[in-house]
């Protein structure tokens, strides 16, 4: 009998948090630091704009690439905020979240047999998306002793004749690491010499706490070979709206648009209306949320180091990525026991690739009260481990 499931679908591993998800479902009084989304509701002006447009009957398809009014706002925003220039008529596609942007970016550049280098620890979707396109993901480690940044040497070591692209994600999920201009400049020669495409997922760009975010495409000559991915979920607390975008030079963007029009038709119109409002009038609330994340980060990282879980200071995103090595437990054991014994949910670092082993990811996108309680429970957990 022929199997119903394709080989590629069969071989994709299930998400590493499935087990924890099931455990948490049956428990009470759990404090979850396992959430990869803002705890804020979408700012009200953004919701209002969407509600108003629905009332007016704006509920249809839009042009494949997105509403021109939104694309123009995205182009203006990227230029003002990050000195990143894209032509809104030819070089930007609005997508259903950055998830879709990532998928079409990879399918745009990857042929079966191609290798794609992925910085690790990494968001869990990159490798499966490469596999779905018939490519081979190749992890490159970003080490804690280098503040989880990617170095030219480690990148160069991973490049082969079959390497087609590199996926980077800074500020990083799960480490909170960021890359500055000099860090990217150091990579530029390797990327250019081997004629690679750079896919840069910058969805956490606004959540940068020290200095300002560097958009990869603004460094040296990288623009002509970079696909920039960004979206509204994290910066504007809009995860459920499913709105992201892909930006790339004309030729790449038009190829990506072909895939987008066949698989998605267009991004949801309500999300597009909401996103436009976010870019037009959302700065203040966005900045207030970022300030709140930064304060929580200060509080939480100090707390982790105080109770004995060494943690580097993340410069972006909303994740702490402490080491659990001092406990002698593996990250899986640590996360499982912390959940069952103290009802605190965190994500084991190995979910994000082999180089995440020995760490846990704690999201501080939750209230300060929750963070304080989680710290006390973690402290109690550590005390029980070493009587």
């Amino acid at each position, binding site marked *: 009998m022929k199997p119903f499931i394709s080989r590629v679908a069969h071989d994709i591993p299930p998400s590493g948090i499935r087990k924890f998800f099931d455990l948490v479902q049956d428990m009470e009084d759990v404090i979850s630091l396992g959430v990869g989304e803002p705890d804020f509701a979408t700012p009200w002006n953004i919701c209002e704009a969407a509600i108003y447009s629905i009332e007016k009957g704006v509920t249809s398809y839009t042009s494949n690439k997105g509403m021109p009014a939104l694309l123009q706002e995205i182009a203006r925003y990227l230029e003002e905020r990050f000195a990143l220039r894209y032509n809104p008529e030819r070089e930007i596609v609005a997508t259903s979240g950055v998830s879709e942007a990532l998928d079409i970016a990879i399918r745009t550049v990857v042929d079966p047999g191609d290798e794609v280098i992925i910085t690790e620890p990494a968001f869990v979707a990159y490798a499966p998306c490469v596999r779905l396109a018939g490519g081979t993901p190749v992890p490159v480690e970003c080490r804690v002793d280098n503040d989880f940044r990617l170095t030219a040497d480690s990148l160069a070591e991973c490049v082969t004749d079959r390497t087609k692209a590199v996926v980077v994600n800074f500020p990083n999920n799960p480490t909170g690491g960021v890359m500055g201009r000099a860090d990217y400049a150091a990579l530029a020669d390797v990327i250019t010499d081997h004629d690679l495409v750079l896919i840069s997922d910058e969805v956490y760009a606004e959540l940068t706490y020290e200095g300002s975010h560097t958009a990869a495409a603004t460094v040296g000559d990288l623009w002509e070979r970079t696909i920039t991915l960004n979206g509204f979920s994290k910066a504007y607390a809009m995860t459920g709206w499913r709105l992201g975008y892909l930006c790339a030079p004309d030729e790449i963007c038009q190829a990506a648009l072909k895939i987008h029009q066949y698989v998605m038709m267009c991004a949801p119109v309500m999300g597009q209306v909401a996103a436009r409002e976010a870019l037009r009038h959302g700065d203040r609330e966005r900045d207030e949320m970022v300030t709140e994340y930064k304060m*929580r980060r200060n509080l939480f990282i100090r707390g982790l180091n105080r109770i004995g879980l060494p943690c580097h200071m993340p410069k972006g995103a909303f994740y702490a990525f402490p080491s659990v090595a001092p406990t002698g437990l593996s990250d899986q054991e640590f996360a499982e026991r912390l959940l069952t014994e103290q009802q605190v949910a965190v994500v084991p670092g190995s979910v994000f690739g082999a180089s995440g082993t020995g760490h846990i990811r704690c999201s501080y996108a939750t209230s300060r009260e929750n963070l304080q309680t989680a710290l006390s429970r973690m402290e109690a957990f550590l005390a029980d481990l070493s009587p």
Partner: protein
Amino acid sequence: MDEKDRLLLTLLDQNSRLPASELAELTDLDEPDVKDRIRRMEEAGIIQQYTAVINWEKAGDGEVSAIIELKVSPERDFGYDKVAERIGRFKQVRSLRLVSGVYDLELLVTGKNIHEVARFVAEQIAPMDHIRETATVLIMKTYKENGHIFYEREEVERLPLSI
């Protein structure tokens, strides 16, 4: 005043009972530094008072509040200041502002009942020199006070875990 001072003010405006230790962690400062900054802002009159936001309707003691709007003739050399300072001395006046628009001064007045408020306006405020006109706006229900929403809202559940 620097960025950290402003952050401290924002935090205290939201919750004036935050202990210095927590303020220090949130703003990434030392505790003595936080105390020093707060003391300086108190001395400079930037921080005036530490108070609670109270839903008096829920407390059920039946006090009433009203916004009183006044048209005032400004005085040479003093503008509205002298009149405002006189009005501000009344205990019943909880807040007092100079505003733009049809009226000049806006007061928040509280009293045991509507008669007490009405009598206060009619007998104490309206007859004062330079007051040309008054309008009393009774507050029926407070939905939001100093950034705090008073009505009940349902909690929205997020997924307990996501990547």
